[in-house]
């Protein structure tokens, strides 16, 4: 495997105060995917949302999909 051309199959980006962090995994049953699932559940528990790329655009998901190619965790928001 060439590390310069290697790109993980699945990625999840998590917004934070220092910009987003990216969690990646290759296999749905890998420890990296389980860690991403844990972060996903924690984020939604705290009121956040998650968007995923679909062939027709973007959609909100409420369950972690380890097969999704690109997930973005959106911070919770409220009226000011």
């Amino acid at each position: 495997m060439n590390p310069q051309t290697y790109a993980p199959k699945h990625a999840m980006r998590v917004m934070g105060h220092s910009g987003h962090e990216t969690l990646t995994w290759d296999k749905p049953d890998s420890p990296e995917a389980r860690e991403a699932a844990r972060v996903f559940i924690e984020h939604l528990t705290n009121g956040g949302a998650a968007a995923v790329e679909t062939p027709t655009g973007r959609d909100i998901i409420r369950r972690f999909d380890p097969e999704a190619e690109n997930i973005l965790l959106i911070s919770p928001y409220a009226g000011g």
Partner: protein
Amino acid sequence: MASFAEVIADMVWGSKPPEGPAWPKRSRIDPRIDHLRAGPERAHALLMEYSSPAQRETIPHGFLRVETTGYRYYIRTGGSVYTMDRNNPQFYYYLCVHALQDLPGADEALVMKLAIELDEPRFLYLANRINTFRRDPSSTYFVPDVPF
């Protein structure tokens, strides 16, 4: 006879002082500092990635324009959103809405954009409508018509 400074240098570094500055850059001590500094740039790149070509054109004007069937939104970084009813364009509203995390400005604008695009009714329910303004150019709160 060696000077006092040379004796101290010999005690600290050995017989030869190290090359380069005595204090390394902070990023050499902790590489996470570079990562933190690059946060706004990464946020801007993410916003550009998630924006359509038409929306990308609006960003240099200071607004991110998002259009839905009923409203036209002008999102400013930092949590303020102006919206204009397309059926009643002489008025616009100032919506106050903030991300609950401390985010870079571009990420905060992206949160608002996706909230509007993915679940507009919830966004309008949560956002506080602060005031309604007539489109008066002399007003402090006037949102200029941007040429795009």
